[in-house]
């Protein structure tokens, strides 16, 4: 599968995904490189605001793990996942809903 297609499939997998209290509303994905040249799949997710100061750690870790496993299935490099709460959405552009 071409990288663009794989990114699209991963985006489809991400949007609507639920992990505990976290609901993914939108996603922005891109292939990039770390400073050491290692490829990385950068995933920025627009999610619901946490009930408290932040989300439950187990929910966050499960979400990252789910996305990482799907990325491997799609042949994509290591994922780097960022969560953006809805109330902070103004600080981030380019989400795909």
């Amino acid at each position: 599968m071409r990288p663009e297609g794989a990114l699209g499939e991963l985006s489809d997998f991400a949007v609507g995904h639920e992990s505990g209290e976290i609901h993914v509303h939108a996603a922005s994905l891109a292939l990039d490189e770390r400073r050491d040249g290692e490829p990385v799949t950068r995933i920025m997710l627009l999610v619901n605001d946490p009930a408290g100061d932040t989300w439950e750690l187990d929910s966050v870790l499960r979400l990252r793990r789910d996305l990482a496993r799907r990325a491997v299935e799609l042949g994509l490099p290591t994922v780097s996942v960022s969560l953006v709460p809805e109330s902070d959405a103004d600080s981030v552009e380019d989400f795909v809903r």
Partner: protein
Amino acid sequence: MPSYPIEPGKLLETADRLVPAHPGRGRPAYTDHRRALSTAYYAVFHAITDRVTKAAFTEADTAFQRKVQRWIKHGDIRMVSVWVGQMEGTIKGGPPQHIEALLRPGEGVIHIDADTLSIAEGFLDLNEVREQADYDHDAVFTRPQTLSYLAQARSVVATVEGTQTDAAKRFFGLVAMRSNIQAR
């Protein structure tokens, strides 16, 4: 002579102070968030190097251990953590065959447990976010996300310092074997 060792717990306290529970009004302190994430990563890094050193030099005095601890590189821990991720299907590719045979010696047997996975994943997550925090001008670190990483760092440090599982000890041992004696 006074001694001020690097203590993971103190680093975590510093990280917490940079993201207070009740921030003042106005624009979020994004620079503080970056420093908090970098500091939290170093808490995890130093917690691991402490365990790795003590695993390899069980009877050595503190001065000896501190010198040897400096030889453990970020890349040593990263490589062993990547092997764990590859074995767990969260990172593309697989470890070298002889490493895979070590970690999965037989049908149904795997020397990766929940503690090892937590340590490996946590190290990789925080190593990646530290890179972004320190070098990526475009990276965004909201307060909830920063607090989430700090919670993960606290959890990983507690696991590193407290685990007694055979699998985690093998992880620390592999990191020790990856590390090389340095010039000083």
